[in-house]
């Protein structure tokens, strides 16, 4: 199976092409359309290999459900088209043995069975904003489909960089990270509006998105009618 991504980078749509018998596992809310010769099964969080998902509030996951659907082509070739919630780009990152990819929870879209997705709860809580983040670990071989809010920038880090976590899509092995203050002092960091900021160091690949879903959510959400709680 392979992913074909169209309408990059703004309104990207991924087409998962399936030969007879081939399958792809996708985040439940991602399906857009499909040929009618596919069998569909539903798995629990992360195909049953979930971790501590029971306590997650949906707010932290940006609307992700972590139920997955598996689409399998029956007899003839078929396809399923996939898209994330927000506008932006998608990328199929090819994994090789020993080359894990750490993907921000809301950036994962789909992968074949040859890729193992493991939830790895990172207790990265923002000091003030209540912003939390968790990463999935993708290992194995084959393509992993990730989405970005905005355009994707990928670069190879060799040294150090300070990154706003809301802009982090994924990163490879060889990168260490620690939470750091956005500005001088705690009050300033609160007012700076940056939320969680990481100091990332080492040698490895980093994928960033050119928009921050939390900033966008706040900007639009704060204008919406209030909710009941």
């Amino acid at each position, binding site marked *: 199976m392979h992913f074909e991504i169209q309408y990059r980078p703004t309104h990207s749509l991924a087409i998962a092409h399936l030969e007879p018998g081939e399958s792809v596992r996708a985040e439940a809310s991602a399906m857009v359309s499909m040929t009618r010769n596919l069998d569909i099964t539903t798995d629990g969080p992360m195909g049953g290999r979930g971790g501590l998902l029971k306590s997650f509030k949906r707010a932290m996951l940006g609307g992700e459900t972590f139920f997955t659907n598996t689409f399998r082509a029956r007899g003839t070739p078929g396809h399923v088209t996939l898209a994330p919630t927000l506008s932006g780009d998608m990328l199929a990152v090819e994994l090789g043995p020993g080359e894990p990819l750490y993907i921000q929870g809301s950036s994962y879209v789909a992968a074949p069975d040859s890729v193992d997705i493991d939830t790895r709860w990172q207790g990265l809580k923002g000091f003030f904003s209540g912003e939390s983040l968790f990463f999935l670990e993708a290992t194995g071989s084959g393509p992993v489909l990730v989405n970005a809010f*905005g355009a994707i920038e990928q670069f190879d880090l060799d040294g150090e960089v300070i990154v*706003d976590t809301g802009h982090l899509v994924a990163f490879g092995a060889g990168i260490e990270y620690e939470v750091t203050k956005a500005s001088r002092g705690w009050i300033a960091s609160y007012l700076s*509006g940056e*939320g969680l900021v990481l100091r990332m160091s080492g040698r490895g690949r980093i994928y960033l998105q050119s928009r921050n879903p939390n900033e966008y959510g706040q900007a639009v959400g704060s204008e919406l009618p209030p909710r009941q709680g």
Partner: protein
Amino acid sequence: MQHYIEHGPAFAWLRVRLEPEERIVAEAGAMVRRSTALEVETRLNASKKAGFLGMVVAFFVALMRKLFGGETMFVNEFWGPQGGEVVLAPKLSGHILRKSLDGTRTLFVQSGGYLASTAGIDTRLRFGGLRTLFGGEGLVLLQCSGQGDVFVNSYGGITEIPVDGQFVVDTGHIVAFDGALDFRVRSIGGAKSFLFSGEGLVCEFRGRGTLYIQSRNLKALVSWVAPLLPR
């Protein structure tokens, strides 16, 4: 300073390479990534010419807006003894435009449209009435003057309109305009249209100058999404 506007026109971000001691001021929350060697200072985006009272008022306004929503006017200033790189991104999707001011002209930027500016640029918040203070109707503008660059962001694409005479724009679609233009906010076509037409307020421009409009409008997005929300 070198600047690069990348990933436009839909998801543009601004990448800036600062010389040693060179400064750039950016809207709170805009940073994507930066060199570890840069210093960051968070402060109010008050006019440099404001006296003590001006600063107190500006602080109060900023605090109110942070608590009740709206442009906070807190900014982050980036600089370093060896310089460095910082990448800045707006909140909504769209493009970034750089406007250079030479000390003789003023640029009005709609609140939400300000992304960043260089050290020589002075900014003053201009708005009409208490309702606007709390994010209500009307135009909230940042008046920019001085010498340097202002980086403006849009929601949607940016279209440049050379006004020569008269032109009417829905207020939510204004990005920025020349200080030389006269402007007046009114409701479109009488009371009935205001209630039913779906258009909010419009701004009537007169004179000669450049106007930048954006092809999307946050208030329109809000109206469109609102009926789909649960209780």
